[in-house]
């Protein structure tokens, strides 16, 4: 009976993810001009955000003990993590304080399904949320080739695990701070935004161990 329930839950999760992916596609197709405007803006801003650090690394031939391409790898990593978080927890699921502050969380509470299921699926936006994924993957690939990293299946699996874990840490941190919106809806409405930005920047430190582990 228990196994049957688990399988039913997994099946429902799959159907909901497909449904939200379809709705995301429909949102994109509804007004392609508006979609492209947002998408290109996101790409432009993500490139601008990493360009400053990249230019600094170029000027000083690295930052501290990190070489130019190691810095590039970290910037690619953090951009990819942000892209994953935005793709899995889009539509203000990641920035939960906005939903709480605006009273939109009530819509989730009255749905005939567990809250965790809604939060895991409602934000799935593989199309609109992917604006940061491609620049991030491109930056990482460029640095991996330049650094001549010994990429093995184990290393690649660890990389994927790290990326996923970093995205989850960012989401958790956002939820911890964003919960303040239960007590101060108006004041804490935007609190998730600086929390996400701060954690995103700090998350690159964790990844440095992965890269160093691949060095002879």
């Amino acid at each position: 009976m228990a196994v049957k329930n688990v399988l039913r839950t997994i099946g429902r999760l799959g159907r909901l993810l497909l449904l939200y992916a379809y709705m995301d596609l429909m949102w994109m197709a509804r007004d392609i001009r508006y979609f492209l405007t947002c998408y290109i803006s996101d790409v432009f801003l993500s490139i601008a955000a990493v360009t400053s650090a990249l230019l600094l690394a170029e000027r000083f031939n690295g930052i501290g003990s990190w070489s130019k391409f190691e810095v590039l790898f970290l910037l690619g990593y953090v951009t990819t993590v942000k892209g994953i978080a935005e793709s899995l927890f889009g539509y203000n699921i990641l920035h939960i304080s906005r939903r709480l502050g605006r009273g939109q969380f009530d819509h989730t509470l009255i749905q005939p399904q567990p809250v965790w299921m809604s939060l895991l699926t409602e934000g799935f936006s593989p199309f609109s949320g992917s604006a940061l994924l491609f620049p991030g993957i491109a930056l990482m690939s460029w640095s991996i080739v330049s650094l001549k990293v010994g990429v093995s299946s184990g290393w690649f699996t660890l990389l994927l695990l790290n990326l996923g874990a970093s995205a989850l840490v960012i989401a958790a941190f956002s939820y911890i701070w964003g919960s303040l919106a239960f007590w101060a809806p108006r004041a804490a409405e935007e609190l998730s935004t600086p929390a996400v930005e701060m954690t995103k920047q700090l998350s690159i430190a964790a990844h440095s161990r992965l890269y160093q582990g691949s060095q002879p």
Partner: protein
Amino acid sequence: MLLSDNKYLRTALMETTGQVGDNPLFAVYYLLRFLRAAVLLSVWRIVFVGDQTVSGMSLETVLTYTLIAEAFRQPLECRDTGVGTALWEGSIATRMLRPMGLFTQFATEMMGRWLFGFAFFSTPLLLIAPVLGVNPLPPNLQSALLFPVSLVLSVSVGLALEFIFGAVVFLSQSVYLASMLRDATVTLLSGALIPLALLPWGLGSVFEWTPFASMASAPLQIYTGTDQALLLIVLQATWSIVLWPLAFYLWTTRRERLVTYGG
């Protein structure tokens, strides 16, 4: 007329006190700003090795530059006008009915917000600068005297750009696009985050002629003792003279295209 009856002052003070009334969690935001300043200062200490001097900038100069950039971040960015929010939520329509010029409303409210930030963030940051190992003082009297002049011109250029980017919303119907474009260009070109002189391939010498450099790089260079202070002030004044008529023109001619719902 009593000073307290001045409508501009009253508007600014409403915004200043509103920071506390509307936002009891304001301390968290300022805590994050302190953290950001501390991180940036530590990054420069890692980047500069020993007594290295790069493009005429020593570590001590860069630290002072970064500290002043963080302390005066709000005026140097000019992002607190609320133009984007007013266009986003539609309250721009009711603002047009108020007995005060549109630009004046946004500017006075913005300065009210700065007053609060200056009291609760800038002043404490400058006071604890020696503890952080940073000298917050300008190197000479000329820099100290010219910095306020340059800062006023910087705000003038920043405000004009804020309204020009606001006018982009009229054309594109997208607050998001205008906001992202502004953030991206200002982050890279203003010199608020990284001094333009430290950019590679001589990019800084190109960027310093843009209006974005007049927003942050110019006053910060003057504060840290550049020998081109007068040239920078003339450049700032020129951009101010060029950009304000453009901002007025765009808002006057394009406001008819504005469609709002809400507010």
